Protein backbone atom coordinates (compact mmCIF):
# COMPACT_ATOMS: atom_id res chain seq x y z
CA UNK A 1 0.00 0.00 0.00
CA UNK A 2 1.33 3.37 -0.97
CA UNK A 3 2.08 5.09 2.30
CA UNK A 4 1.43 8.54 0.94
CA UNK A 5 -2.22 7.61 0.51
CA UNK A 6 -2.52 6.94 4.22
CA UNK A 7 -0.63 9.98 5.40
CA UNK A 8 -1.35 12.67 2.83
CA UNK A 9 -3.95 14.46 4.95
CA UNK A 10 -2.89 16.21 8.14
CA UNK A 11 -5.56 14.40 10.13
CA UNK A 12 -4.21 10.96 9.20
CA UNK A 13 -2.13 11.32 12.36
CA UNK A 14 -2.39 8.38 14.76
CA UNK A 15 -3.24 10.65 17.66
CA UNK A 16 -6.11 12.25 15.79
CA UNK A 17 -9.46 10.52 16.24
CA UNK A 18 -10.51 11.26 12.66
CA UNK A 19 -10.52 7.92 10.88
CA UNK A 20 -8.83 7.07 7.60
CA UNK A 21 -11.22 5.38 5.21
CA UNK A 22 -10.01 4.16 1.85
CA UNK A 23 -12.61 3.94 -0.89
CA UNK A 24 -11.76 1.92 -3.97
CA UNK A 25 -14.14 3.18 -6.66
CA UNK A 26 -14.48 1.71 -10.11
CA UNK A 27 -13.85 4.09 -12.98
CA UNK A 28 -17.12 3.48 -14.80
CA UNK A 29 -19.80 3.69 -12.09
CA UNK A 30 -18.74 4.52 -8.56
CA UNK A 31 -16.01 7.07 -9.29
CA UNK A 32 -18.44 8.90 -11.53
CA UNK A 33 -21.04 8.53 -8.77
CA UNK A 34 -18.61 10.10 -6.31
CA UNK A 35 -17.98 12.85 -8.84
CA UNK A 36 -21.72 13.45 -9.07
CA UNK A 37 -21.91 13.68 -5.28
CA UNK A 38 -19.26 16.37 -5.51
CA UNK A 39 -20.78 18.34 -8.37
CA UNK A 40 -24.18 18.13 -6.66
CA UNK A 41 -22.53 19.71 -3.59
CA UNK A 42 -23.61 16.86 -1.34
CA UNK A 43 -22.03 16.84 2.11
CA UNK A 44 -20.24 13.76 3.36
CA UNK A 45 -17.41 13.27 5.88
CA UNK A 46 -13.99 14.31 4.58
CA UNK A 47 -12.25 11.20 5.96
CA UNK A 48 -12.33 9.26 2.72
CA UNK A 49 -9.44 8.85 0.36
CA UNK A 50 -10.88 7.75 -2.92
CA UNK A 51 -8.71 5.52 -5.09
CA UNK A 52 -9.87 5.15 -8.67
CA UNK A 53 -9.51 1.64 -10.07
CA UNK A 54 -10.60 0.48 -13.51
CA UNK A 55 -12.86 -2.20 -12.05
CA UNK A 56 -13.81 -3.20 -8.52
CA UNK A 57 -12.85 -6.72 -9.61
CA UNK A 58 -9.20 -5.70 -9.68
CA UNK A 59 -9.14 -4.90 -5.97
CA UNK A 60 -7.30 -7.95 -4.74
CA UNK A 61 -7.89 -8.99 -1.10
CA UNK A 62 -4.16 -8.25 -0.56
CA UNK A 63 -4.78 -4.54 -1.02
CA UNK A 64 -7.63 -4.42 1.45
CA UNK A 65 -5.84 -6.42 4.15
CA UNK A 66 -2.64 -4.42 3.59
CA UNK A 67 -4.53 -1.17 4.01
CA UNK A 68 -6.26 -2.31 7.18
CA UNK A 69 -3.08 -3.65 8.76
CA UNK A 70 -0.97 -0.64 7.80
CA UNK A 71 -3.00 2.24 9.08
CA UNK A 72 -6.42 2.50 7.43
CA UNK A 73 -9.45 2.33 9.75
CA UNK A 74 -11.88 1.22 7.12
CA UNK A 75 -11.98 0.14 3.51
CA UNK A 76 -14.91 0.63 1.20
CA UNK A 77 -15.05 -1.06 -2.18
CA UNK A 78 -17.55 0.40 -4.64
CA UNK A 79 -18.45 -1.06 -8.01
CA UNK A 80 -21.20 -1.09 -10.63
CA UNK A 81 -24.44 -2.86 -9.82
CA UNK A 82 -24.39 -6.57 -10.63
CA UNK A 83 -25.02 -7.00 -14.34
CA UNK A 84 -23.89 -3.45 -15.14
CA UNK A 85 -20.15 -4.12 -15.08
CA UNK A 86 -18.25 -2.46 -17.91
CA UNK A 87 -16.22 -5.65 -18.16
CA UNK A 88 -19.25 -7.96 -17.98
CA UNK A 89 -18.46 -9.95 -14.86
CA UNK A 90 -15.83 -8.00 -12.91
CA UNK A 91 -18.13 -7.26 -10.02
CA UNK A 92 -19.17 -10.89 -9.62
CA UNK A 93 -15.50 -11.49 -8.91
CA UNK A 94 -15.54 -8.61 -6.45
CA UNK A 95 -18.42 -10.25 -4.65
CA UNK A 96 -16.49 -13.53 -4.33
CA UNK A 97 -13.42 -11.68 -3.12
CA UNK A 98 -15.42 -9.72 -0.58
CA UNK A 99 -16.46 -13.04 0.93
CA UNK A 100 -12.81 -14.00 1.39
CA UNK A 101 -11.97 -10.55 2.78
CA UNK A 102 -14.75 -10.79 5.36
CA UNK A 103 -13.38 -14.14 6.53
CA UNK A 104 -9.87 -12.73 6.75
CA UNK A 105 -10.98 -9.80 8.91
CA UNK A 106 -11.68 -12.45 11.53
CA UNK A 107 -8.23 -13.99 11.08
CA UNK A 108 -6.56 -10.63 11.53
CA UNK A 109 -8.69 -9.71 14.54
CA UNK A 110 -10.44 -6.84 12.75
CA UNK A 111 -14.08 -5.86 13.23
CA UNK A 112 -16.46 -6.66 10.35
CA UNK A 113 -17.53 -3.00 10.17
CA UNK A 114 -14.12 -2.06 8.83
CA UNK A 115 -14.85 -3.44 5.39
CA UNK A 116 -17.85 -2.77 3.21
CA UNK A 117 -18.76 -3.60 -0.36
CA UNK A 118 -21.37 -1.39 -2.02
CA UNK A 119 -22.72 -1.05 -5.53
CA UNK A 120 -22.96 2.61 -6.58
CA UNK A 121 -23.91 3.54 -10.13
CA UNK A 122 -22.84 6.70 -11.97
CA UNK A 123 -26.20 8.34 -11.28
CA UNK A 124 -26.25 7.59 -7.56
CA UNK A 125 -24.41 10.60 -6.13
CA UNK A 126 -26.69 10.84 -3.07
CA UNK A 127 -26.24 7.13 -2.43
CA UNK A 128 -22.46 7.49 -2.50
CA UNK A 129 -22.64 10.33 0.05
CA UNK A 130 -24.95 8.25 2.22
CA UNK A 131 -22.75 5.12 2.06
CA UNK A 132 -19.71 7.21 2.90
CA UNK A 133 -21.44 8.84 5.88
CA UNK A 134 -22.60 5.49 7.21
CA UNK A 135 -19.17 3.95 6.77
CA UNK A 136 -17.33 6.75 8.55
CA UNK A 137 -19.87 6.76 11.38
CA UNK A 138 -19.56 2.99 11.80
CA UNK A 139 -15.79 3.19 11.89
CA UNK A 140 -15.85 6.09 14.37
CA UNK A 141 -17.93 4.02 16.76
CA UNK A 142 -15.24 1.31 16.87
CA UNK A 143 -12.31 1.39 19.29
CA UNK A 144 -9.02 2.27 17.55
CA UNK A 145 -7.68 -0.48 15.31
CA UNK A 146 -5.15 -2.69 17.09
CA UNK A 147 -2.88 -2.30 14.07
CA UNK A 148 -2.79 1.47 14.52
CA UNK A 149 -1.61 1.62 18.08
CA UNK A 150 0.72 -1.38 18.09
Amino acid sequence: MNETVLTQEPHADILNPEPVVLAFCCNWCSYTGADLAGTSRLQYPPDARIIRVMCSGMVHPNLVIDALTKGADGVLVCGCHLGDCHYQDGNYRTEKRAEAIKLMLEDFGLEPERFRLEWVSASEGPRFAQVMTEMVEAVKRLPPSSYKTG
Partner: protein
Amino acid sequence: MAVKVAEEWLNICGGCEVSILDIGEPLLDLLPNLEFVHIPVLMDHKYHGQTGEKDPQVIEIPQADVGIISGGIRNEKEKHVAEAMRKSCKTLISLGSCACFGGIPALANMWTLEELQEKVFRGSKTTEKAETPKKDLPPLLEKVLAVDEVVKVDLSIPGCPPSPDWIKEALLCLLSGKPFVMPDKSVCDECPTKREKKASGGSLKRPLDTPQFKQNAPWEETRCLMEQGYLCMGPVTKAGCSGLTSEPGEARVPRCIKGYMACRGCFGPVKKGSNPLVDMMGALSSIGLNPNQVADRRATLNRYMGAHGMLKPLPAKPVPVKK
Protein backbone atom coordinates in the same frame (compact mmCIF):
# COMPACT_ATOMS: atom_id res chain seq x y z
CA MET B 1 42.06 -27.47 2.80
CA ALA B 2 38.82 -28.78 4.18
CA VAL B 3 36.05 -26.31 4.99
CA LYS B 4 35.17 -26.33 8.69
CA VAL B 5 31.47 -26.84 9.36
CA ALA B 6 29.56 -26.38 12.61
CA GLU B 7 26.01 -27.67 12.82
CA GLU B 8 23.45 -26.98 15.54
CA TRP B 9 19.92 -28.19 16.04
CA LEU B 10 17.59 -26.03 18.04
CA ASN B 11 13.80 -26.31 18.25
CA ILE B 12 13.47 -29.15 15.75
CA CYS B 13 12.52 -32.77 15.11
CA GLY B 14 15.81 -33.78 13.46
CA GLY B 15 14.39 -34.23 9.97
CA CYS B 16 16.71 -31.61 8.50
CA GLU B 17 19.74 -33.61 9.66
CA VAL B 18 18.26 -36.70 8.02
CA SER B 19 17.95 -34.61 4.85
CA ILE B 20 21.68 -33.88 4.97
CA LEU B 21 22.33 -37.64 5.02
CA ASP B 22 19.72 -38.05 2.30
CA ILE B 23 22.07 -36.27 -0.12
CA GLY B 24 23.22 -39.85 -0.64
CA GLU B 25 26.24 -40.77 -2.74
CA PRO B 26 27.18 -37.18 -3.70
CA LEU B 27 27.74 -36.63 0.03
CA LEU B 28 30.69 -39.03 -0.18
CA ASP B 29 32.29 -36.74 -2.79
CA LEU B 30 31.59 -33.70 -0.63
CA LEU B 31 32.87 -35.13 2.65
CA PRO B 32 36.64 -34.89 1.96
CA ASN B 33 36.12 -31.15 1.54
CA LEU B 34 34.20 -30.78 4.79
CA GLU B 35 35.41 -31.04 8.36
CA PHE B 36 32.68 -31.12 10.99
CA VAL B 37 34.00 -29.37 14.07
CA HIS B 38 30.72 -29.25 15.98
CA ILE B 39 27.61 -31.30 15.27
CA PRO B 40 25.67 -32.39 18.36
CA VAL B 41 23.46 -34.76 16.38
CA LEU B 42 26.51 -36.88 15.50
CA MET B 43 29.23 -36.21 18.03
CA ASP B 44 29.55 -35.33 21.65
CA HIS B 45 30.76 -31.81 22.11
CA LYS B 46 30.08 -29.81 25.26
CA TYR B 47 29.40 -26.09 25.40
CA HIS B 48 31.41 -25.39 28.57
CA GLY B 49 34.47 -27.62 28.17
CA GLN B 50 34.30 -31.42 27.99
CA THR B 51 34.03 -31.80 31.78
CA GLY B 52 32.05 -28.62 32.29
CA GLU B 53 35.10 -26.90 33.76
CA LYS B 54 34.66 -23.62 31.91
CA ASP B 55 32.39 -20.63 32.48
CA PRO B 56 28.77 -21.89 32.45
CA GLN B 57 27.61 -18.50 31.15
CA VAL B 58 29.66 -18.73 27.95
CA ILE B 59 28.65 -21.09 25.17
CA GLU B 60 31.72 -22.22 23.31
CA ILE B 61 31.47 -23.28 19.69
CA PRO B 62 34.66 -23.88 17.71
CA GLN B 63 35.49 -21.47 14.89
CA ALA B 64 34.07 -22.62 11.57
CA ASP B 65 33.76 -21.37 8.02
CA VAL B 66 30.18 -22.51 7.63
CA GLY B 67 27.54 -22.76 10.33
CA ILE B 68 24.29 -24.60 9.78
CA ILE B 69 21.37 -24.04 12.14
CA SER B 70 18.26 -26.13 11.90
CA GLY B 71 15.22 -25.40 14.00
CA GLY B 72 13.59 -22.26 15.28
CA ILE B 73 14.28 -20.57 18.61
CA ARG B 74 11.96 -21.40 21.48
CA ASN B 75 13.95 -20.81 24.68
CA GLU B 76 16.78 -18.72 26.13
CA LYS B 77 19.35 -21.47 25.67
CA GLU B 78 18.59 -21.77 21.98
CA LYS B 79 18.89 -18.01 21.64
CA HIS B 80 22.35 -18.09 23.25
CA VAL B 81 23.45 -20.99 21.06
CA ALA B 82 22.31 -19.13 17.93
CA GLU B 83 24.27 -16.05 19.03
CA ALA B 84 27.35 -18.18 19.75
CA MET B 85 27.01 -19.84 16.34
CA ARG B 86 26.92 -16.43 14.66
CA LYS B 87 30.08 -15.38 16.49
CA SER B 88 31.97 -18.55 15.54
CA CYS B 89 30.87 -18.97 11.94
CA LYS B 90 31.80 -16.88 8.93
CA THR B 91 28.74 -17.91 6.93
CA LEU B 92 25.52 -18.92 8.64
CA ILE B 93 22.89 -21.09 6.96
CA SER B 94 19.39 -21.54 8.30
CA LEU B 95 18.29 -25.00 7.26
CA GLY B 96 14.66 -26.03 7.06
CA SER B 97 11.36 -24.27 7.54
CA CYS B 98 11.66 -24.07 11.33
CA ALA B 99 14.89 -22.10 11.08
CA CYS B 100 13.59 -19.98 8.18
CA PHE B 101 10.01 -19.25 9.26
CA GLY B 102 9.38 -20.89 12.65
CA GLY B 103 7.86 -24.05 11.17
CA ILE B 104 5.27 -26.30 12.79
CA PRO B 105 6.30 -25.38 16.39
CA ALA B 106 5.50 -21.75 15.60
CA LEU B 107 1.81 -22.63 15.35
CA ALA B 108 2.01 -22.14 19.12
CA ASN B 109 2.41 -18.42 18.41
CA MET B 110 -1.36 -18.24 18.03
CA TRP B 111 -1.58 -18.28 21.82
CA THR B 112 0.25 -16.45 24.58
CA LEU B 113 2.86 -18.32 26.59
CA GLU B 114 0.58 -18.30 29.66
CA GLU B 115 -2.32 -19.83 27.71
CA LEU B 116 0.02 -22.44 26.28
CA GLN B 117 1.45 -23.51 29.64
CA GLU B 118 -1.98 -23.45 31.23
CA LYS B 119 -3.25 -25.85 28.56
CA VAL B 120 -0.24 -28.16 28.55
CA PHE B 121 0.31 -28.50 32.29
CA ARG B 122 -3.16 -27.93 33.70
CA GLY B 123 -5.91 -27.51 31.12
CA SER B 124 -5.77 -30.80 29.25
CA LYS B 125 -8.07 -33.55 30.52
CA THR B 126 -5.49 -36.29 30.15
CA THR B 127 -2.86 -34.43 32.14
CA GLU B 128 -2.33 -34.51 35.87
CA LYS B 129 -2.36 -30.89 36.99
CA ALA B 130 1.11 -29.65 37.83
CA GLU B 131 3.08 -26.47 38.20
CA THR B 132 4.90 -25.25 35.10
CA PRO B 133 8.37 -26.81 35.53
CA LYS B 134 11.10 -24.24 36.01
CA LYS B 135 13.98 -25.89 37.88
CA ASP B 136 17.12 -26.45 35.77
CA LEU B 137 15.28 -25.57 32.58
CA PRO B 138 15.98 -22.63 30.28
CA PRO B 139 12.96 -20.31 30.35
CA LEU B 140 10.78 -20.32 27.22
CA LEU B 141 10.67 -17.20 25.10
CA GLU B 142 7.37 -15.39 24.68
CA LYS B 143 7.06 -16.86 21.17
CA VAL B 144 8.83 -19.10 18.67
CA LEU B 145 11.31 -17.12 16.60
CA ALA B 146 12.96 -17.83 13.26
CA VAL B 147 16.77 -17.77 13.38
CA ASP B 148 16.99 -14.54 11.38
CA GLU B 149 14.92 -12.74 14.01
CA VAL B 150 17.80 -13.27 16.46
CA VAL B 151 21.00 -13.23 14.39
CA LYS B 152 21.90 -12.32 10.82
CA VAL B 153 21.55 -15.26 8.46
CA ASP B 154 23.48 -15.35 5.19
CA LEU B 155 21.63 -18.10 3.42
CA SER B 156 18.27 -19.82 3.85
CA ILE B 157 17.29 -23.29 2.70
CA PRO B 158 13.58 -23.77 3.38
CA GLY B 159 11.58 -26.97 3.33
CA CYS B 160 10.06 -29.43 5.77
CA PRO B 161 12.25 -31.33 5.33
CA PRO B 162 14.54 -29.40 2.96
CA SER B 163 15.37 -31.04 -0.32
CA PRO B 164 18.79 -32.80 -0.30
CA ASP B 165 19.44 -31.37 -3.77
CA TRP B 166 19.28 -27.82 -2.47
CA ILE B 167 21.49 -28.59 0.55
CA LYS B 168 24.07 -30.06 -1.81
CA GLU B 169 23.73 -27.07 -4.14
CA ALA B 170 24.21 -24.63 -1.23
CA LEU B 171 27.32 -26.45 -0.01
CA LEU B 172 28.75 -26.63 -3.54
CA CYS B 173 28.07 -22.91 -4.03
CA LEU B 174 29.86 -22.11 -0.78
CA LEU B 175 32.82 -24.35 -1.67
CA SER B 176 33.21 -22.73 -5.08
CA GLY B 177 32.30 -19.21 -4.01
CA LYS B 178 29.27 -18.92 -6.28
CA PRO B 179 26.16 -17.09 -5.04
CA PHE B 180 23.28 -19.35 -3.96
CA VAL B 181 19.85 -18.31 -5.17
CA MET B 182 16.54 -20.10 -5.21
CA PRO B 183 14.23 -18.97 -8.01
CA ASP B 184 11.17 -16.82 -7.19
CA LYS B 185 8.88 -19.37 -8.79
CA SER B 186 5.81 -21.05 -7.35
CA VAL B 187 5.24 -24.77 -6.96
CA CYS B 188 2.64 -24.53 -9.75
CA ASP B 189 5.39 -23.33 -12.13
CA GLU B 190 7.13 -26.67 -11.69
CA CYS B 191 4.07 -28.87 -11.38
CA PRO B 192 3.45 -31.03 -14.45
CA THR B 193 -0.23 -31.79 -13.79
CA LYS B 194 -2.82 -30.79 -16.35
CA ARG B 195 -4.64 -27.51 -15.87
CA GLU B 196 -7.83 -26.91 -17.78
CA LYS B 197 -8.12 -23.31 -16.58
CA LYS B 198 -11.66 -23.96 -15.58
CA ALA B 199 -12.77 -22.97 -12.14
CA SER B 200 -13.83 -26.15 -10.43
CA GLY B 201 -16.23 -24.27 -8.20
CA GLY B 202 -18.17 -25.60 -5.28
CA SER B 203 -16.96 -27.12 -2.10
CA LEU B 204 -13.47 -28.02 -0.99
CA LYS B 205 -12.58 -31.69 -0.69
CA ARG B 206 -10.97 -32.99 2.47
CA PRO B 207 -7.21 -33.61 2.21
CA LEU B 208 -7.50 -37.38 2.60
CA ASP B 209 -10.22 -37.86 -0.04
CA THR B 210 -8.69 -39.73 -2.97
CA PRO B 211 -8.16 -37.57 -6.05
CA GLN B 212 -8.83 -38.84 -9.57
CA PHE B 213 -5.74 -40.24 -11.23
CA LYS B 214 -4.58 -43.23 -13.19
CA GLN B 215 -1.73 -45.15 -11.63
CA ASN B 216 1.47 -44.89 -13.71
CA ALA B 217 -0.17 -42.60 -16.28
CA PRO B 218 2.03 -39.68 -17.40
CA TRP B 219 1.72 -36.65 -15.11
CA GLU B 220 0.34 -34.55 -17.96
CA GLU B 221 -2.83 -36.66 -17.80
CA THR B 222 -3.42 -36.08 -14.09
CA ARG B 223 -5.63 -33.09 -13.41
CA CYS B 224 -4.40 -30.28 -11.18
CA LEU B 225 -5.41 -31.08 -7.59
CA MET B 226 -6.66 -27.55 -7.01
CA GLU B 227 -8.96 -27.92 -10.02
CA GLN B 228 -10.14 -31.19 -8.54
CA GLY B 229 -11.23 -29.24 -5.48
CA TYR B 230 -8.38 -29.78 -3.00
CA LEU B 231 -6.78 -26.99 -1.04
CA CYS B 232 -3.32 -26.96 -2.66
CA MET B 233 -0.86 -24.33 -1.44
CA GLY B 234 1.07 -24.58 -4.73
CA PRO B 235 0.17 -21.12 -6.08
CA VAL B 236 1.59 -19.30 -3.05
CA THR B 237 4.53 -21.58 -2.21
CA LYS B 238 8.13 -21.31 -3.35
CA ALA B 239 9.20 -23.95 -5.86
CA GLY B 240 12.13 -26.23 -5.16
CA CYS B 241 10.81 -29.34 -3.46
CA SER B 242 11.03 -31.27 -6.72
CA GLY B 243 14.80 -30.94 -6.41
CA LEU B 244 17.26 -30.01 -9.12
CA THR B 245 17.78 -33.29 -10.89
CA SER B 246 15.65 -36.28 -11.77
CA GLU B 247 16.15 -39.85 -12.85
CA PRO B 248 16.42 -40.12 -16.65
CA GLY B 249 12.98 -40.29 -18.22
CA GLU B 250 11.19 -39.16 -15.08
CA ALA B 251 9.41 -35.85 -14.68
CA ARG B 252 10.36 -33.55 -11.81
CA VAL B 253 7.28 -33.47 -9.66
CA PRO B 254 6.70 -31.47 -6.46
CA ARG B 255 7.11 -33.85 -3.54
CA CYS B 256 3.57 -33.90 -2.16
CA ILE B 257 2.00 -33.99 -5.61
CA LYS B 258 4.12 -37.06 -6.31
CA GLY B 259 2.15 -38.78 -3.55
CA TYR B 260 -1.14 -37.38 -4.95
CA MET B 261 -1.42 -35.06 -1.97
CA ALA B 262 -1.95 -31.32 -2.21
CA CYS B 263 0.95 -28.96 -1.39
CA ARG B 264 1.04 -27.80 2.23
CA GLY B 265 3.32 -24.84 1.72
CA CYS B 266 6.47 -25.97 3.52
CA PHE B 267 8.87 -24.04 1.25
CA GLY B 268 7.42 -20.75 2.41
CA PRO B 269 6.10 -17.79 0.45
CA VAL B 270 7.19 -17.27 -3.17
CA LYS B 271 8.43 -13.78 -2.35
CA LYS B 272 9.86 -12.97 1.04
CA GLY B 273 7.42 -11.14 3.23
CA SER B 274 4.20 -12.00 1.43
CA ASN B 275 1.42 -13.54 3.48
CA PRO B 276 0.29 -16.95 2.20
CA LEU B 277 -3.02 -16.68 4.05
CA VAL B 278 -4.05 -13.53 2.21
CA ASP B 279 -2.70 -14.71 -1.15
CA MET B 280 -4.37 -18.10 -0.87
CA MET B 281 -7.73 -16.70 0.17
CA GLY B 282 -7.54 -14.39 -2.83
CA ALA B 283 -6.68 -17.31 -5.10
CA LEU B 284 -9.48 -19.50 -3.72
CA SER B 285 -12.10 -16.82 -4.18
CA SER B 286 -10.84 -16.07 -7.70
CA ILE B 287 -11.17 -19.65 -8.91
CA GLY B 288 -14.55 -20.13 -7.28
CA LEU B 289 -13.74 -22.52 -4.45
CA ASN B 290 -15.50 -21.73 -1.21
CA PRO B 291 -12.93 -20.05 1.08
CA ASN B 292 -15.31 -20.51 4.00
CA GLN B 293 -14.61 -24.24 4.01
CA VAL B 294 -10.91 -24.05 4.81
CA ALA B 295 -10.70 -25.74 8.18
CA ASP B 296 -8.74 -23.82 10.83
CA ARG B 297 -7.89 -21.11 8.30
CA ARG B 298 -5.11 -19.20 10.05
CA ALA B 299 -3.16 -22.30 11.00
CA THR B 300 -3.75 -24.21 7.76
CA LEU B 301 -2.67 -21.40 5.47
CA ASN B 302 0.26 -20.32 7.65
CA ARG B 303 1.24 -23.81 8.66
CA TYR B 304 5.01 -23.35 8.50
CA MET B 305 5.14 -19.60 8.83
CA GLY B 306 4.30 -18.72 12.42
CA ALA B 307 7.42 -16.67 13.19
CA HIS B 308 8.09 -13.09 11.99
CA GLY B 309 4.80 -12.09 13.62
CA MET B 310 2.76 -13.94 10.99
CA LEU B 311 0.81 -15.84 13.63
CA LYS B 312 0.03 -14.06 16.85
CA PRO B 313 -2.66 -14.18 19.51
CA LEU B 314 -5.73 -12.34 18.25
CA PRO B 315 -6.56 -9.22 20.22
CA ALA B 316 -9.41 -9.80 22.62
CA LYS B 317 -12.69 -8.74 20.99
CA PRO B 318 -13.03 -5.13 22.06
CA VAL B 319 -16.32 -4.00 23.56
CA PRO B 320 -17.88 -1.39 21.27
CA VAL B 321 -18.17 2.06 22.81
CA LYS B 322 -21.82 2.87 23.30
CA LYS B 323 -23.02 6.37 22.68
